[in-house]
């Protein structure tokens, strides 16, 4: 999509135009990070952005560059050399270069790779902000399935270069239902209670002090209430991510 590698076959169209004949026009409307953002380590953050802005196809003012550095949380580090940056800061600078020319489409390839937990949360919030507040379309490629589940509206699962499934995340995962794991003192009695009172529950399984089942989101509180009323002790309730299971199931079916 960014014309980094030669196409073996077929044609790519973006914004309704074939990439081959409209490369400059299309790329000037795309911002991207491919895996880890690489910059000139001997130049400052601002100088790096200035160089890339010059070939971005749009005129980006000095103040716009400072604004975008502030937006990604690099205020005060503009003049620092790239080689002094932490991984999280490098990632933020990568996002800054992807956004500086105000593109409509942003392509982020593994943007949270190698980040610490706080860094992952920051990048996730930044992506949500871009999508929800600025109306940008973000194409996010990631192996962090929990991230995709939390961020994406639509998803495509690709295995060995072929699309396995494509659609809205909530529809594909049926997010009105979720898999939950209860830790209780007597799982077998809990199973009996569920089978008796909650007919919509599916896929009940038990393991030592845990039981796991799929249930409508609205019924989780009712199940917990029923357990307590019947003298069961609850030690924990945990929502299990569904995309991971869904992904493994899809790959297995191929």
């Amino acid at each position, binding site marked *: 999509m960014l014309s980094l590698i030669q196409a073996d076959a077929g044609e790519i169209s973006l914004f309704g135009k074939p990439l081959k004949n409209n490369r400059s026009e299309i790329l000037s409307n795309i911002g991207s990070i491919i895996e880890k953002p*690489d910059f000139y380590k*001997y*130049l400052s953050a601002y100088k790096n952005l200035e160089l*890339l802005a*010059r*070939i971005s196809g749009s005129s980006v003012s000095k103040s716009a560059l400072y604004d975008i550095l502030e937006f990604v949380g690099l205020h005060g580090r503009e003049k620092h050399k790239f080689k002094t940056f932490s991984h999280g800061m490098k990632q933020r600078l990568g996002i800054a270069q992807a956004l500086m020319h105000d593109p409509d489409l942003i392509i982020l390839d593994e943007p949270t790779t190698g980040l610490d937990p706080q860094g992952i949360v920051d990048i996730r919030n930044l992506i949500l902000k871009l999508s929800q507040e600025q109306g940008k379309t973000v194409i996010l490629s990631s192996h962090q399935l929990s991230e995709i589940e939390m961020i994406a509206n639509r998803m495509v699962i690709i295995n060995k270069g072929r699309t396995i499934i494509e659609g809205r995340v909530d529809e594909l995962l049926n997010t009105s239902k979720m898999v939950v794991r209860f830790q209780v003192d007597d799982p077998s009695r809990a199973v009996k209670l569920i089978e008796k009172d909650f007919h919509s529950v599916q896929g009940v399984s038990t393991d030592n002090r845990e039981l796991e089942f799929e249930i409508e989101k609205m019924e989780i509180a009712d199940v917990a209430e029923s357990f307590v009323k019947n003298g069961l002790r609850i030690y924990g309730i945990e929502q299990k991510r569904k995309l991971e299971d869904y992904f493994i199931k899809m790959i297995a079916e191929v």
Partner: protein
Amino acid sequence: MILKSTYNELIKILAKPRSYIGFGALTLLIGVILIAMKADGENFISFVTASFEQSLSFNGDILNGNLMAFIILQMLIIHVPLLVALVTGDLVSGEAAMGTLRMMATKPISRNAILGSKFLAGAIYTFLLTLWMAFMAYGVGQWMFGTGDLIVLNNDGLVIIPADDIAWRYIYGFALAYLSLLSIATMSICFSVFSDNSIGPIVSTMAVIILFTIIGSLDVPSFNNVQPFLLTTHMASWRSLFEIPVPISDILNSICILLAHILGFTGIALWKFNKKDITT
């Protein structure tokens, strides 16, 4: 876009410490030669002219700025390519190794413009390096040793060029030296397109120069057919400007062959770079 990108390339070259190694090395080497000749040049000249003293009598100041520039240019023309390749060999492969080439290639600039700007920046850097060599060898040489007639030993014997007939020869001489170095620069950029690390193109460039120099100097019949087309054969073409009369056709031939190398390396590099999958 290519001009903006060339400006970017020059900023990158100026920001890299290795870009100054060439200027530093030239200053040091030429400085050492000039100081050594200032201190002990008379003995050196006596040693060289001793074999002619039975048939010729030398009067005046043979050890002058013009002779110094000639000696320095002759000594350095084989070594300066390393200083050029140190920067130009890194222009594409260095960025591939750093990962910045991929970042550039995602921008709305054509691959021809990316590579074209690197060639232009490499040509400007080579020009500045040649200019510095000219300033140090000719300018500082004149300042330290003054002017005078130039005595050059060629294949045909001694050539004596009057002082007022020398400046133009050096102007064209350094222009020819620039053309030679430019062909080295394009060769190293071409090698750089094929590599993803900086060392490979620099070492390959020097290996080719050494190999061509050896082939060019060996009097082996099978090499005789290729020698006229070797890059290194024409790197010393500037010397022809210090012959009387100046062999214009030989010089034009050298210019054509050097230009053919420049165009050839540029063409190969553009072809490869446009086909290249940029994955790092």
